[in-house]
């Protein structure tokens, strides 16, 4: 470890112009009498580098998310660069994997009938899901990819988390490929987020939350500028959300419901 001058902090603050007048005079007196202090200050001066300019280059690495909240039809990067599913054995600690539960008994044809007004609780969690989703761009999930075996393992793991049977719907008919599952936090409750990627554009998420809400038929809506379809069944609330065409989103919800019914 580099030995520091006994007055290193004062000298550093002097070099950084972070001292008041009186303190500067004190340091200058020190420099008049202490050659090692002069030498140390010289070293500090040598390393006065354009740090900000250098690091500002890192700001250019990816576009800010807010500029990509609209449909993005350009994708110049390979989607299948890595093959990995986010389950406990291979996931970083900070990205807790998760999954989907589902056994909805709703018929597909009931899809877009709404019979109940939203409760405040329901609105809150939908806004939270939208808040999460606003943070994601294509790059956030495109490097994740899962084999059928891995998806099955993930389903099992996620099912354990919610104490329910979990189905991760295959939404390939809507050109949505499953990328990963995560458990997020929604006011202290586990929020399962399944991320799908369309061929172009931003991700779509199917989220599941345990709740005490009464069964609700599917209802369309918009939160934070993002269209969604939400429903509740058997103590679980669901939402599928994403900046894609509303018809495509509805079709994806319908498909998800159908598979959950079949597997429930």
């Amino acid at each position, binding site marked *: 470890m580099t030995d520091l001058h006994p007055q290193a*902090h004062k000298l*550093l603050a002097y070099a950084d112009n972070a001292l008041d007048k009186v303190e500067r005079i004190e340091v200058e007196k020190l420099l008049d009498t202490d050659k090692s202090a002069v030498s140390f200050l010289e070293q500090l001066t040598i390393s006065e*580098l354009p740090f900000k300019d250098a*690091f500002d280059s890192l700001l250019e690495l990816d576009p800010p998310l807010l500029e990509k909240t609209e449909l993005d039809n350009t994708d110049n990067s390979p989607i299948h660069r890595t093959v990995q599913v986010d389950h406990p054995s291979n996931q970083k600690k900070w990205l807790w994997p998760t999954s989907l539960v589902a056994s909805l008994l709703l018929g597909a044809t009931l899809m877009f009938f709404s019979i109940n007004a939203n409760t405040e609780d329901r609105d809150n969690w939908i806004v939270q899901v939208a808040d*999460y989703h606003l943070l994601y761009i294509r790059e956030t999930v495109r490097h994740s990819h899962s084999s059928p075996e891995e998806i099955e393992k993930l389903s099992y793991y996620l099912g354990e988390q919610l104490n329910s049977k979990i189905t991760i719907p295959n939404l390939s008919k809507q050109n949505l490929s499953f990328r990963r599952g995560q458990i997020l936090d929604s006011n202290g409750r586990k929020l399962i987020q399944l991320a799908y990627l369309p061929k172009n554009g931003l991700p779509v998420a199917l989220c599941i939350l345990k709740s005490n809400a009464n069964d609700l038929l599917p209802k369309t809506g918009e939160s934070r500028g993002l269209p969604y379809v939400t429903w509740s069944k058997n103590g679980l609330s669901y939402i599928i959300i994403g900046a894609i065409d509303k018809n495509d989103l509805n079709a994806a919800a319908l498909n998800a419901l159908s598979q959950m019914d079949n597997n429930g």
Partner: protein
Amino acid sequence: MPPKKDHLPQEISKQIPRLRRYAIVLTTIKEDAEDLLQATLERAIAKKHQWQENTHLDRWLFTIMSSIWKNELRSRYTRQGNGVTDNIQDIADNSSTKNLEGTFLINQVLNEVMKLSEDQREAILLVYVEGLKYQEAADILEIPTGTLMSRLARARITLAKSLAFNEESTNIVNFNEHHH
């Protein structure tokens, strides 16, 4: 003007480039940086009720990221075998970072800073890049101000020596080229 809570997600999104930069400084690996960034954003959304209006959102986010990364390092240490990359050479050897490689290498300053220890890198970033005062940066890192200043001083001395060494090396190369 500090952001209001109602607009927090949008305001958080605006901080993403700076957060990504901080994540790169901490992790040195692009994919790890993206994971850390995402975890930070998700934590911020989950804990948005804890953020106090009229305070600096960026510092709150930096604190979250720093905390998540420290926990991750502890976790890696516990798991063993997943060493933390502190050396730029390790980055260059990692194929997953090729997108970054060019960026690093074209900028000698960035290159030299990234060779420093993680503690020193983040101190440099917070004070000399983000423009925080010593005390403010120390608060984010949850360390005494004196510790932060020692890290900065050591970093600066290391950089000075490194630059001097590189200059000498360049002179030697030039000398040899001149005589061949």
